[in-house]
């Protein structure tokens, strides 16, 4: 198979995503009062309603509707004044009523968009001219969102004794209804994504957005956020749509990217050999880095959709919508721009901090504890040092930041100090002082070291005088070694240049 970048030179990939997100931060299920928790022993969070016992009726979870409206507002969707629940019928024991309560043609929120900023290598995947505007070598891809609708999750089934945990050949099937009735929102994009990188970025941005809203723990690993990809190819310059395949088991950002990349190359190979792509559902096998056929879709399933008569249509009031709007916190893009404007952070650093609400919150809390001009260093610390440790306190973070900002420690020294203080509550400043690590800016003391080094490195001194100015780096290294890392390398550099030039 050809490489993705080559394939994308000849072919345009048309990609759409369907993203299911469980609203895990709610306390109760969508249509009953059962506790939301998948970790409890099987079939303990169940009641007549979520078990579909005779006579039981659904009562909608109002908070879940607030959450989906917030999700819609955060993704620039229109909040629909009137929408309703529908029943989608299929016989399978994971759905206790043998129908899933979901939404019909009108969802709670519809017609939104998310703008993706693609930079670096990802930008190279898109060779065409559809890039709207470039910022710092990146481009912005506007991705339309068709709708986000509300539905209930199915129970979890475990098939025992069969091959690969599938029902075929299994000797028995176990059902855990704890998950049955979990509030689930399904977001469907328009087919606006053009590269695997855009798909990955879309998922990342969506996850950041939902995490910021606090509506889900958004764990791809645990399955509280799940993604299916639809992809088809067309020749560059053409506008029709090719036959698409649907990809399943994309349970990490890497899987999403790699499965789409594989599938694009596979489809290109089929088409270039004169074959046709079949409309089928394919399963991503991460270990073998390929997609395999799950089932061929010959006909559309007939789910016998009709409006759920147990649930009256929802007429959302202005007041309700405004209350939801007021609950939408500052979103990652706005936060990023504020970080850049307030502290002059690098745009990419600001975006990374703003993308994870927990990190952003810590960063902002810590920012109060350092001088304004040290905040860019704080960003550096938050992104490059803090994640490596278990339990640094806010004070430890601000202390190490100040030491680094004042050039009193090197990054490698900072790492050693943090390792020692992590989980102890000890202050970095004290540890660094005890260890004699504090980089000295005392010019007099350091000048002595410089003299000693210059005295024994005659060859390098000569090289410098012959015009090889780079050799000063070696000499700084010698000074650092001689001072056991306690000297400030910048001060050494200044002193060395002074003496060599003088």
């Amino acid at each position, binding site marked *: 198979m050809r490489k993705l970048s080559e394939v994308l030179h000849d072919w345009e990939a048309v990609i759409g995503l369907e993203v299911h997100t469980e609203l895990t931060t709610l306390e109760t299920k969508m249509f009953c009062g059962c506790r939301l928790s998948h970790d409890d022993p099987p079939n303990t969070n169940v009641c007549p309603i979520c078990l579909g016992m*005779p006579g039981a009726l659904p009562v909608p979870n109002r908070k879940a509707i607030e959450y989906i409206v917030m999700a819609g507002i955060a993704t620039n969707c229109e909040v629909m004044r009137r929408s309703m629940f529908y029943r989608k019928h299929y016989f399978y024991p994971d759905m206790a009523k043998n129908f899933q309560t979901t939404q019909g043609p009108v969802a709670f929120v519809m017609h939104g968009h998310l703008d993706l900023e693609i930079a670096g290598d990802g930008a190279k995947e898109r060779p065409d001219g559809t890039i709207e505007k470039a910022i710092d070598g990146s481009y912005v891809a506007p991705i339309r969102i068709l709708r986000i609708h509300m539905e209930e999750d199915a129970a979890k089934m475990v098939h025992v004794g069969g091959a690969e945990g599938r029902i075929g050949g299994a000797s028995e099937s176990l059902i855990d209804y704890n998950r049955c009735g979990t509030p689930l929102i399904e977001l469907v994009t328009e087919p606006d994504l053009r590269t695997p990188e855009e798909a990955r970025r879309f998922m990342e941005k969506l996850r950041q957005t939902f995490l910021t809203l606090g509506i889900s723990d958004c764990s791809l690993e645990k399955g509280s956020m799940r993604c299916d990809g639809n992809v088809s190819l067309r020749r560059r310059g053409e506008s029709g749509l090719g036959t698409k395949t649907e990809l399943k088991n994309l349970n990490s950002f890497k899987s999403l990217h790699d499965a789409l990349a594989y599938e694009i190359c596979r489809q290109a190979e089929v088409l270039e050999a004169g074959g046709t792509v079949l409309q089928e559902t394919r399963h991503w096998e991460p270990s073998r880095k390929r997609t395999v056929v799950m089932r061929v879709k010959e006909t559309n399933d007939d789910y016998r959709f009709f409006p759920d008569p147990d649930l009256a249509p929802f007429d959302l009031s202005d007041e309700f919508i405004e209350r939801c709007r007021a609950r939408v916190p500052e979103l990652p893009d706005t936060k990023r721009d504020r970080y850049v404007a307030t502290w002059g952070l690098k745009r990419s650093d600001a975006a990374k901090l703003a993308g994870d609400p927990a990190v952003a919150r810590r960063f902002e809390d810590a920012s109060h504890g350092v001088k304004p001009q040290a905040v860019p260093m704080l960003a550096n610390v938050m992104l490059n040092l803090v994640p490596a440790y278990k339990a640094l306190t806010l004070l430890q973070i601000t202390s190490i930041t100040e030491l680094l900002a004042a050039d009193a420690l090197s990054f490698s020294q900072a790492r050693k100090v943090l390792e020692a203080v992590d989980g102890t509550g000890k202050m970095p400043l004290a540890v660094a002082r005890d260890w004699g690590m504090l980089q000295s800016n005392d010019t007099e003391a350091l000048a002595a070291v410089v003299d000693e080094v210059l005295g024994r490195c005659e060859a390098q001194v000569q090289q410098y005088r012959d015009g090889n100015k780079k050799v000063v780096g070696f000499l700084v290294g010698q000074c650092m070694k001689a001072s056991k890392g306690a000297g400030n390398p910048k001060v050494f550099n200044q002193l060395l240049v002074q003496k060599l030039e003088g």
Partner: protein
Amino acid sequence: MTSLDTLTARQIAAGIAAGDFTATEVAHAALDAISARDASTQAFLQVSENLALEAAAKTDAARAAGESLPPLAGVPVAFKDNMNLLGTRTTCASRMLETYESAYTATCVQRMLDAGATPLGKLNMDEFAFGSTTDSSAFHPTNNPWDITRVPGGSSGGSAAAVASGQVTLALGSDTGGSIRQPASLCGVVGMKPSYGAVSRYGVVAFGSSLDQAGPLGRSVEDVALAMNALTAGGRDRLDATSQNCAQDHLAHLEDPIEGRAVGIIPALLEAEGLASEVRTAILDAADKLASAGAHIVEVDLPNMASSIAAYYVLAPCEAFSNLARFDGVRYGYQEPRCTTLAEQSSLSRAHGFGPEAKRRQMLGAYLLSSGVYEKYYLAAQKVRTLITADYQRAFAQVDAILMPASPTVAWEHGAISDPAALYLADVFTISNNIAGNCGISVPVCLGADSGLPIGAQLQGPAFADAQLLTFARALERACHMEGIVAPAFAGKGGELA
């Protein structure tokens, strides 16, 4: 010696409060009546003797402790077997649920118990409420207490027969297209279908969710009004998203005169083909009696009523197909033994668990909801629903109630009508009321001139004017002298209070 036959619900509660007799004595009298009478009516599917005696003992203990007693204290009541009651099976008269033990208690049942009623058991019905004869019960038919060779009507036939034969004072039924009003008419008792949303549907096994409504049957309008108080007490049920707060005293205006009020009749409807002349005469006579009580009789029209049967037999089967999908033998109910695959287990459990009418309706619904067909029928039926609702709104702008038959004929002999379509057409007077969500009540007005069998007049009222409808029903009852009657073949058989 007093017989339960002669006591109203209010008299029973008052007698217990006054110490004339105990709730336990009343319960024993009711159990005695059931054992003496139900062999010929076959109204009961289960008699809950233990639950009855426990509830009665609680009532007696409350009285002994000097507590004030609730309004239905000690009143014998039984429930259609599509209503969950902890400690009983809820079978829906189907093999599918033959051994199903209720996992909880339905709100309407609980509210009757909260009002102090003594639960005597569960009553026969057409399987899953599909029918108008009670003959489609998977277990046995129920006989009309006025002539045991005849059907009691349905689907709440067990409820009507148990009340008409004096085995209980009150019963609950459910009405999706006439299933309370028609058997009430055929058995000579009062049966009320409250406005959609007035009584919680939680715990009543669903047939057509947008049409179903539980309601009371009794031997007098006053007893039914007392039950309505109990069913609506506590207001909206938060377990039923379609329920409304209808708590009020349905007795407060029961005896109000109807002088000067307007009652509608639909002349074209009284000329309908298949309407028995004795029924037609009875309804015209009822109109005269209301007029004598001072009401204006006004001709009104429901121009789309003729389409109501077609619309109903689209909407109801669609909802039934969906509601009955859960019965697949996986978690509860009939499970086909020795199946090798999941598909086999669910399809054979359904094939052998459901009777013919339940299958017919579900297959109809499955077809009507399939893509391409749905648009043609379901959506068309919803439009008819809108038209019928608008027809009623226009009519109720002119009148407070509309008078019509509940059934085109008196009770017929078991097996006399075997064509399902002919049975569907007999629902013509009742189903438009469910389609529009209004309230309706059947009041016995006379014994048929030709048959000697009871005939009920149906009064329909606007949604949530249930109390007002009871006022008209009471006015009609006062003029007809049919209240409190136990079918003659059963009166006085057992049921004596010691």
